[in-house]
């Protein structure tokens, strides 16, 4: 509604403006027309006056000439001349006035023509008078040519004037019509505009009123909102208070609940305890029963058990003495009843033993003690005793002490024996160890000597044979040289044997240094040392992920060296040698494997495999002394492991060694 009002307003305003414009235009036009009318009136007036003037001038000339004619006074000539000038000026003026009216212009030209004629006539008159006298002039004048001319002028002037007036009238009428039209139009427009303006005012008024209403409503709403907001605040405050109150309540409820549950628990406790009490009462009854049975049972037990049992009262009087004790001491129960236990001990230990017994009065039971018992035949037996105090029913005092013995005489003897034997053993072990150590030392010295002393002669043999060859080559024939060379080679062989023996013996003597080391890196290092042997041969070596081993790293390295060296050596006749090295952990030990596809060996002779200086192949097929595997076996056995091998002749061999994981 608002928008359309606005539009209406705008629209209305436009219309009003447009209307006003039209009115203005109409007014302007009307004014213009009025002005035009005025102009035309002026114009017509001018034309009329002008033409009248011309006529009058003509008349003046006429009268002047007449005058002259009459009087022959030259003073009448002056007006003619003057009028003459003036009249033509007038005529041309009139002509100009009618510049857009060809008809009128023609008429003016006619007037001009006739005027000239008249003038000429007048001049002729004048001339005649002046020259020929009055009669001639009157005669001339009587021709009425002059009058004719004047009439013509008068006529034309009238026509011009009438024409002019007629035209003026016409124009006036037309104008009046226009004016009237314009006026009417203006009035109408004016009325319309007034209407529209009123309308506009009404609408604007409405619009403004509406706005006012809206504003009022808006301000009412704002006030209402403020009210609401305020009330909401109040409500919120109230709500917050309520929440706090609620929390209070909840808290109090919790407290109440806690108290209630505490009460419940207390009740349960009580119920439970009541039950317990009932149980306890029932138990007591059964206990009493059992006790009665127990007493009877114990009586029998005590009497007939194998272990000697004695009971004495706080006054150290024997109150019970069972069968076993009777046997040990050779005394009957009735003999000892009421007497002190001291009578049972060998005299030398009496005091000490009684001391121990007195200690039993304090505390509920005694730790195991050893007290000897005397038999009436003089023999003494050693027993291990434990005792217990039997307390009164109120638990405050002991009513009796019961002691049970265990014959340990024999055991003591045995223990003494064992101790003696152990001592002897210790001594023997120390002796043997010393012997072993000295033996080892001797061996070491021996090996050292062997290595030094055996080698020297070898060196000499080889050396002098060499010198012999060098110095006497001329005298020696082929055979001789060959023999000498054999001698030289043999000394070298012997040297190698000696070295091998020494190594073997040393491996048995050196201390094992057990460490955890990485087998993989050990094998890699070992393989590097075989670089030369591997160069130029088609060998594929596969090393799988090897588990760590725990042992003497340098010795185990020797094992790897020997096994790998063998694998390389014995596969040298195969076009492509394949060596697989692997390891696994099984049953608490690590098992390593070196497998080759070489010559293999005959399993029939497998038990010789790890023997010292034992070979399963000919030296000319595969060189070697037969110490490598013996060393491997020695080392692995010292680690607590085992060596074994599998093979098929010409189809390779697999060698295994195990090391416990400890």
């Amino acid at each position: 509604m608002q928008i359309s009002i606005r539009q209406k307003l705008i629209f209305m305003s436009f219309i009003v403006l447009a209307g006003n414009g039209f009115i203005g235009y109409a007014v302007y036009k009307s004014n213009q027309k009025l002005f035009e009318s005025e102009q035309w009136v002026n114009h017509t007036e001018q034309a009329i006056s002008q033409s009248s003037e011309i006529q009058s001038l003509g008349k003046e000339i006429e009268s002047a000439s007449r005058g002259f004619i009459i009087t022959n006074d030259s003073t009448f000539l002056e007006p003619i001349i003057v009028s003459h000038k003036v009249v033509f000026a007038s005529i041309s003026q009139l002509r100009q006035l009618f510049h857009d009216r060809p008809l009128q212009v023609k008429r003016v030209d006619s007037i001009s023509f006739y005027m000239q004629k008249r003038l000429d006539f007048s001049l002729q008159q004048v001339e005649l008078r002046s020259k020929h006298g009055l009669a001639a002039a009157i005669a001339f004048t009587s021709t009425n040519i002059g009058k004719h001319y004047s009439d013509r002028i008068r006529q034309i002037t009238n026509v011009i004037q009438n024409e002019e007036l007629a035209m003026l009238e016409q124009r006036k009428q037309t104008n009046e019509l226009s004016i009237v039209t314009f006026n009417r139009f203006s009035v109408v427009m004016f009325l319309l505009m007034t209407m529209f303006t009123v309308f506009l005012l009404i609408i604007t008024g409405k619009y403004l009123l509406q706005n006012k209403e809206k504003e009022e409503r808006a301000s009412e709403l704002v006030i209402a909102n403020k009210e609401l907001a305020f009330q909401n605040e109040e409500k919120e405050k109230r709500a917050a208070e309520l929440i706090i109150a609620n929390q209070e309540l909840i808290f109090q409820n919790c407290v109440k609940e806690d108290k209630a549950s505490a009460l419940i628990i207390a009740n349960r406790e009580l119920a439970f305890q009541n039950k317990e009490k009932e149980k306890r009462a029932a138990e007591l009854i059964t206990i009493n029963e059992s006790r009665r049975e127990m007493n009877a049972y114990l009586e029998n037990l005590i009497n007939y058990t194998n272990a000697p049992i004695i009971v004495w009262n706080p006054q150290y009087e024997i109150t019970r003495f069972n069968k076993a004790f009777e046997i040990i001491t050779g005394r009957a129960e009735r003999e000892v009843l009421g007497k002190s236990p001291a009578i049972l001990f060998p005299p030398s230990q009496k005091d000490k033993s009684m001391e121990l017994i007195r200690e039993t009065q304090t505390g509920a039971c005694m730790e195991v003690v050893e007290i000897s018992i005397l038999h009436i035949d003089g023999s003494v037996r050693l027993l291990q005793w434990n005792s217990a105090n039997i307390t009164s029913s109120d638990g405050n005092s002991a009513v009796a002490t019961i002691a049970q013995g265990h014959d340990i005489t024999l055991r003591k003897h045995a223990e003494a024996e064992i101790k003696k034997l152990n001592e002897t053993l210790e001594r023997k072990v120390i002796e043997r160890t010393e012997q072993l150590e000295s033996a080892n030392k001797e061996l070491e010295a021996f090996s050292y000597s062997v290595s030094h002393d055996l080698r020297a002669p070898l060196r000499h043999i080889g050396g002098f044979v060499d010198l012999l060859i060098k110095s006497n080559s001329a005298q020696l024939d082929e055979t001789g040289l060959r023999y000498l060379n054999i001698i030289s080679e043999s000394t070298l062989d012997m040297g190698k044997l000696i070295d091998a023996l020494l190594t073997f013996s040393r491996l048995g003597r050196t201390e094992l240094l057990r460490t955890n080391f990485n087998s993989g890196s050990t094998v890699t290092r070992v393989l590097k040392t075989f670089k030369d042997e591997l160069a130029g041969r088609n060998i594929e070596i596969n090393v799988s992920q090897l588990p760590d081993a725990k042992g003497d790293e340098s010795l185990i390295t020797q094992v790897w060296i020997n096994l790998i060296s063998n694998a390389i050596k014995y596969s040298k006749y195969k076009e492509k040698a394949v060596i697989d090295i692997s390891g696994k952990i099984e049953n608490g030990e690590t098992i390593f494997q070196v497998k080759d596809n070489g010559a293999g060996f005959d399993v029939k002779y497998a038990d010789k495999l790890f023997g010292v200086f034992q070979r399963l192949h000919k030296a000319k097929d595969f060189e070697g002394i037969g110490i490598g595997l013996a060393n491997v076996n020695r080392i692995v056995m010292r680690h607590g492991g085992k060596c074994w091998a599998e093979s098929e002749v010409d189809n390779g061999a697999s060698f295994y060694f195990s090391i416990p994981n400890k």
Partner: protein
Amino acid sequence: MNAVVKTILIVDDSPKDVELTIAALSEKNLANNVVVAEDGVEALDYLYKRGKFAGFGNGNPAVILLDIKMPRMNGIEVLKHIRSNPEFKFTPVIMVTSSAEEKDLIESYNLGVNSYVVKPVDIVQFIDAIKVLGQYWAVINQPPPFHGK
């Protein structure tokens, strides 16, 4: 090269070894410079120009080829003596012995031996080694300046 004759002192109780050594050195024309001591005592006698070697030689060898296993005084003891004497502290000493025992090695190096050569069984190797040693120490190497008498 010095005008002084460079002596090679061989200390070894085995005449056969000595003979082989000299045979090897002679291949390098060094046999003339050789002096032989048969045990540690004689070696010191030579160095101090006393006893067997009184008034003999110039006492400061270009190199000493020292065996270890000898009677009376062994090579380690000789080395100890030599190195404790400022006069002979820098004399080149090479242990030439059949012992490959670690303890001999450690002791010798601890005492400041210049080199340790194990007598190989292989005679060819032995002769080559001696030739190399002789050539190096008696010919190529510059011995320490002579301090002594």
